[in-house]
């Protein structure tokens, strides 16, 4: 992908990365509705700034574990776009040979332990990855992405407590998009905020505007640096909004129209674009070119996925056990 203004500023680069996720998710949404992608799809449209801001603070060898809504995190961490799209199609050329699909997309070569279809499962896995980092003597960190719904799982409590007592280099990132599946999260807990829970576990925590990619990056960089220097774990709450339903096809009759419109006006790409243009970091044409490039990239990925073969039936029996 040509990042025309990458050398000028980080924000333009962040915009480009968000554009890629936006283009990917929009295309996946269309393809799913056209019955070209099997299974379930949960898009992260509207939440791009969290994935990009956090992953921009990470190194290639840092670990992430994510959720059923994980396409954006994987792309932001460097997953190959062709391989990601082919995985969603269930093709042999997918990142996981078509055996994982949307909810299980992974690429450990890029530090991606994977999306996970069990709400809250990313937290203990990330704690374990951080334990490896610690015990193997590296300064890698791990990140657990999870939603506001997962905060009500026991795994949240147990994992943060375990990471806290062992002072592990884990960044717990709660993407608070306001809804736990179909349910308004504020009706399912009396806590003031997710970040307010940090003090209960004796760990540092912060809340950030999850639609402001620069703010997310700044907060993530501070907390990743702290984790890397042995001052983890850290809890980061990023408030954002899920533009689409829990899954593709969700009628979303539970969302107030004015609420959705207000958040659309706070589109993380629009916010970044206006800041870029106001700051003279790039002009509209350049940003439009970036968007076209990302759309072209996704188009090529779609063609790659379409033209790839399905796995041979013999693949049913491979990869169950290691040798």
């Amino acid at each position, binding site marked *: 992908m040509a990042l025309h203004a990458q050398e000028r500023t980080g924000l333009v680069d962040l915009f480009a990365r968000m554009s890629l996720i936006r283009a990917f998710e929009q295309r996946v949404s269309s393809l799913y509705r056209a019955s070209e992608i099997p299974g379930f799809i949960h898009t992260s449209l509207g939440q791009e700034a969290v994935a990009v801001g956090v992953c921009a603070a990470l190194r290639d060898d840092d670990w992430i574990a994510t959720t059923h809504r994980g396409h954006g995190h994987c792309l932001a961490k460097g997953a190959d776009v062709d391989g990601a799209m082919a995985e969603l199609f269930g093709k042999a050329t997918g990142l996981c040979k078509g055996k994982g699909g949307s909810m299980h997309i992974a690429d450990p*070569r890029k530090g991606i332990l994977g999306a996970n279809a069990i709400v809250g499962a990313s937290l*203990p896995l990330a704690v*374990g990855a951080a*334990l*490896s980092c610690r015990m193997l003597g590296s300064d890698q960190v791990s990140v657990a992405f999870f939603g506001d719904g997962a905060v009500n799982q026991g795994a949240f409590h*147990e994992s943060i407590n375990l990471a806290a007592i062992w002072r592990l280099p884990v960044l717990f990132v709660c993407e608070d998009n306001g809804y736990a599946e179909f349910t308004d999260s504020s009706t399912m807990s009396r806590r003031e905020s997710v970040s307010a829970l940090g003090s209960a576990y004796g760990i540092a925590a912060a809340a950030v505007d999850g639609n402001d990619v620069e703010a997310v990056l700044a907060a993530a960089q501070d907390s990743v640096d702290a984790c890397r220097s042995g001052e983890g774990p850290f809890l980061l709450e990023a408030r954002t909004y899920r533009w689409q339903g829990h899954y593709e096809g969700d009628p979303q009759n539970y969302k107030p129209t004015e609420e959705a419109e207000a958040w659309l006006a706070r589109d993380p790409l629009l916010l970044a674009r206006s800041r870029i243009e106001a700051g003279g970091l790039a002009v509209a044409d350049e940003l439009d070119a970036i968007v076209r490039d990302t759309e072209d990239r996704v188009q090529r990925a779609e063609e790659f996925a379409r033209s790839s073969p399905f796995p041979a039936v013999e693949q049913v029996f491979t990869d169950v056990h290691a040798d």
Partner: protein
Amino acid sequence: MSTLTERQAVRYMDAVREGIAAEMRADSTVCLLGIDVGSSGGIFAVTRGLYEEFGAERVRDTPISEMAFVGAAVGAAATGLRPIVELMFMDFVGVCFDALLNQASKLRYMTGGLLEFPLVVRTQTGAGRSSGAQHSQSLEAIVAHIPGLKVVMPATVEDAYALMRASIRDNNPVVYIENRRLYGRRGYLPADEEPLPIGQARIARSGRDVTVVAWSRMVEVSLQAAETLAAEGVDAEVIDLRSLVPMDIETVVGSVSRTRRAVVVHEAVVPFGAGAEVAARITEEAFGRLHAHVGRIGAPPVPMPFSPPLEEACIPEAAAIAIGVRKTMAAS
């Protein structure tokens, strides 16, 4: 801790510990996690001495948070460590089942083989001590039913050691199930330094008339029953399956092809138990050679009672096994 020398008689629980210690000495990525496994040496003292030898980084006491620490062991296994995680009683698998059911067992497959999980979940079962229904269950069938896990159940001191070493070296998640009523049994560590391959059954007693298939503590109970039966002129062959997954069905079928009769014995409840799987496999592979249907002996389908006489009535003992074998003999 002192290193045990070859051919020194040790207890089953010592063999478990020595197996762990041997692999921890050989490989710095092997670590142990669990409740009270560290400085206090574990509630059954199985891990006593490991903390002193290997230190608090590698022998980690955890909070009572199985969901977090078993789950973390899965994540650690995927990222470079070879964790052994202790689940104090197998009954507690209920609070952390996701780590086995949906994570450790499946993530290798779902990532097309990109991730590996060299993980040992060591746990123990063993009814007969009035531990109550939540501390007495033999739940091997539950984990054996999940593709992607291996399930090891050593019956002897020698196997406890050799199979622990093999389980730690295995690149798959292995559920290693001890029986606490075997902890005090004495025997010898194997002279052979090579770990035993997982998936090889052992003929614990040769016999001509009937094959008794058992694992874990039921092997020694079946051997006792075989002595009773021998006095009656019934010569039973006893097979120690050693692991349910992978299952060495060839050894079982080879035996049944000679004896033409089979009885499966386990401590778990009978319905939907691993005995049903063994019986089905025998039927599939040796139906024409059977003189009688495959018998099953195990606990009745009730929560394990607390009161000693009630509990005793639920655990297969030698007399019950002998009765079951006689029925099979009479049916043919």
